[in-house]
């Protein structure tokens, strides 16, 4: 009650967007704290508006709270003004629902979606009054766990996290909470050491303190596995899915209901970590999706429904799903969106049928030349792109966003010129087709390639930042001529991201230094402090330019090899070699690419219609 009073009377009147900290969202779970034996806080290391758009939070929140004996509450990274107020009033970081200090929970679980949120993890622990270094935490402190895609290379965070959950959390989270309940018994708090002793038995759990400090990390604990295998749900249709998700109070990045068409992606783009670590493709049945969609709209009042997946138009049941879904959405006046469109006219024509707003079509050819698109295994041609744009124009869109990546392996000047050529062709097409109408607006977004663990490009270094700068400038000059808008992603943040994405334990020391120097919310341009990061690298004795650009040999020991994502190293090597030979690999919906996931993890590709 004390926190609640100080919050309402003293803190909230002083901060921007206080709705971020109220915890009274529609569908929020307000349980009787004292009557629930096991309590977990879901800690999202970014601002409310980012965290509330995240499907994983909604799934785990709904799942845990659907169990009478468990409770899950949320905490997000406070904005800088809120952090100042919390430190000033000495109020510890609290959960949103019951405004309890995070310290009072049995388990605090962080989701690691992006490397540039890592300082927020340390900050949230610090604000909660919990020592952020594992070694300094007492046996009676909450268990600190972390999961999510960035946990697939957990090494930089090993000094701070007690246990990582590798892979999909739906089953494992309940196994963890069952265990906490058992170990806790009737005592007020489960012993952290006892818990770790038991957690090691749960598949997918990586406990860094049970492994040697030096590489390769060898298990020191008799029951710790040699390599920690990623957890995968076998059948998505039997898995929990929230149909009463939280409805944000403060405006979130995405304000919409979500149904998940499938997990995994069969396209096999070689730069894409998600494409490797969510395999195999598992589709949900159209009838299940329809029922979920109807419930979600009824239970939330959202104005828009989004069909989520890594490549939504690949969903094999689309022909069956879309007409019924569109009809239902029209009745309830709900917009329908497909966030991940393929670069082809079929996708655009399908999108045309969707009810709701028509703002811009986003297409991601990623590279400018056919050669480089073959290197990265992005199976689209120039023709695909132009036809897609033509279809978009015919369907009434007047804005196209094109996504490219700069700094891809083997990239040459011609590839950058290829981007400019492609953009010029799109602009020209827009001009030709727009006679008498509003001219097509073309926006080009160029991000910087960041090599990621467990991908065929994990052995490749990032380009040096001065070279990247030069490439972006060159591309900008070329694109300016065709009068398209050009946006590029900050090179400095991409370099820090690259350092963590393939970083070893030594990056933990850099992270701590950066946190102590005040680095927070690094993914927000207005808060990113590059100078403080450079100083942190220097103190630890790492040259970030060398670290981000280092290439590995196939037989080098990689820091993340203690994690087994299911995709075999042989497959990654063969994909890397094929990339260097500019050879493509076909979609594994058509031909099995022998990546090893299905056999090693005991799962299969499941399609709603057709093969599976």
């Amino acid at each position, binding site marked *: 009650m004390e926190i609640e009073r100080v919050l*309402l*009377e003293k803190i*909230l*009147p002083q901060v921007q*967007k*206080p*709705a971020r900290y*109220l915890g*009274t969202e*529609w569908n929020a779970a307000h349980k009787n704290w004292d009557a629930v034996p096991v309590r977990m806080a879901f800690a999202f290391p970014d601002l409310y508006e980012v965290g509330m758009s995240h499907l994983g939070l909604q799934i785990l929140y709904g799942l845990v709270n659907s169990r009478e004996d468990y409770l899950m509450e949320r905490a997000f990274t406070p904005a800088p003004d809120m952090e100042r107020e919390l430190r000033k009033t000495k109020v510890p970081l609290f959960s949103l629902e019951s405004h309890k200090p995070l310290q009072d929970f049995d388990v605090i679980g962080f989701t690691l979606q992006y490397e540039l949120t890592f300082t927020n993890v340390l900050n949230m622990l610090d604000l909660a009054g919990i020592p952020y270094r594992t070694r300094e935490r007492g046996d009676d402190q909450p268990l600190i766990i972390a999961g999510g895609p960035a946990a697939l290379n957990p090494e930089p965070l090993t000094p701070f996290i007690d246990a990582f959950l590798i892979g999909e959390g739906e089953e494992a989270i309940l196994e963890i909470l069952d265990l906490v309940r058992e170990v806790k018994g009737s005592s007020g708090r489960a012993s952290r050491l006892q818990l770790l002793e038991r957690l090691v038995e749960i598949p997918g759990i990586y406990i860094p303190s049970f492994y040697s400090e030096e590489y390769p990390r060898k298990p020191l604990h008799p029951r710790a596995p040699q390599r920690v295998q990623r957890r995968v749900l076998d059948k998505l249709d039997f898995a929990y899915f929230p149909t009463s998700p939280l*409805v944000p*109070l*403060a*405006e979130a990045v995405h*304000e919409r209901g979500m149904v998940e068409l499938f997990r995994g992606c069969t396209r096999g783009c070689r730069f894409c970590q998600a494409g490797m670590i969510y395999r195999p493709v598992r589709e949900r049945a159209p009838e299940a999706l329809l029922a979920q969609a109807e419930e979600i*709209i*009824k*239970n*939330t*009042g*959202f*104005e828009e429904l989004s069909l989520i997946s890594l490549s939504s138009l690949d969903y094999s049941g689309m022909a069956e799903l879309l007409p019924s879904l569109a009809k239902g959405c029209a009745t*309830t*006046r709900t917009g329908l969106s497909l966030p991940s469109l393929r670069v082809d006219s079929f996708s655009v024509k399908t999108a045309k049928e969707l009810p*709701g*707003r*028509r703002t811009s079509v986003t297409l991601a050819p990623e590279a400018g030349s056919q050669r480089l698109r073959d290197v990265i295994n992005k199976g689209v041609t120039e023709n695909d792109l132009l036809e897609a744009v033509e279809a978009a124009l015919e369907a009434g869109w007047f804005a196209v966003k094109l996504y490219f990546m700069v700094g891809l392996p083997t990239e040459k000047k011609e590839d950058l010129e290829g981007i400019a050529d492609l953009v010029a062709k799109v602009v020209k097409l827009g001009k030709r087709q727009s006679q008498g109408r509003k001219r097509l607006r073309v926006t080009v977004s160029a991000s910087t390639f960041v090599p990621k663990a467990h991908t065929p490009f994990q052995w490749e270094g990032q380009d040096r930042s001065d070279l990247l700068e030069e490439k972006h400038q060159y591309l900008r000059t070329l694109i300016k001529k065709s009068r398209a808008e050009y946006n590029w992603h900050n090179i400095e943040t991409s370099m820090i991201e690259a350092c963590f994405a393939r970083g070893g334990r030594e990056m933990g020391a850099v992270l701590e230094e950066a946190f102590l120097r005040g680095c927070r919310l690094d993914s927000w341009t207005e808060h990113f402090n590059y100078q403080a990061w450079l100083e942190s690298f220097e103190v630890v004795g790492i040259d970030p330019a060398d670290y981000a650009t280092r290439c590995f040999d196939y037989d080098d020991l990689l820091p993340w090899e203690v994690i087994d994502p299911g995709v075999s190293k042989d497959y990654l090597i063969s994909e890397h070699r094929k990339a260097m030979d500019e050879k493509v690999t076909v979609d594994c919906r058509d031909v099995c690419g022998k990546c090893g996931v299905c056999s090693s993890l005991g799962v299969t590709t499941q399609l709603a219609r057709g093969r599976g």
Partner: protein
Amino acid sequence: MPGYRLQYAKSGSSCFLSHRELMTTLQRGLRRASFPLTYSKGYNPRPKLSFGPPLGVGVAGLQEYIDLELDQDINTEEYLHSLNRLLPPSIRANSLTAVPAGAKGLGKLINCGHYLIDIGEGNDADWEQLLQCGENEGAWSYERPGDGKVYNVSDAIIKSDVYHEGERLYIGFLLKVGNGEIPLRVLLDFLSDKGGAVLLPSMVTRTGLYHLDKGCLLDPLGKRKNLN
């Protein structure tokens, strides 16, 4: 299309919603309660809702209004009940009434609002004398620090009163809304400055919105209220 006027209250934690956040929350509540809302035409159809004058972040409101356009007539009692089940507890729908076609909209109707500031206990300033003094001087002006904009505070105040409830002190203001309105924050900063107390929006409740005409207050549902 039939028009309806919804009167609602926001209190407790919902006071901290911005006007925009409140609009979204109410709109979603109306959608959950299956109100047959009328939507605008075009690529980006929106429900035809017309909100009364916005309340600042932190300020409570006891009698706030939205006008709704619906596709069909509804049973107001049933829909009101359903809406209250589907709104957060700190937002309550008080009443729902049909509005005759051609009736004035909220924007044209409302020209003043009554605000109550909870000063609390232990503030020694003589507010009665202070307010009296302001009325006599006739021209309280306030220069906002930062942008230097000057507001004529006394022009925006139609009437002011001091109330006691035991040791607790309240100041009531009937303030202009729309034409001649000043930001509430300006009034609070001004009073904080004069009275030596820190007055925050979270201490303020808007108790009602009215049309003031010839010394008579009329609320948007047609109820009369005595100015004194």
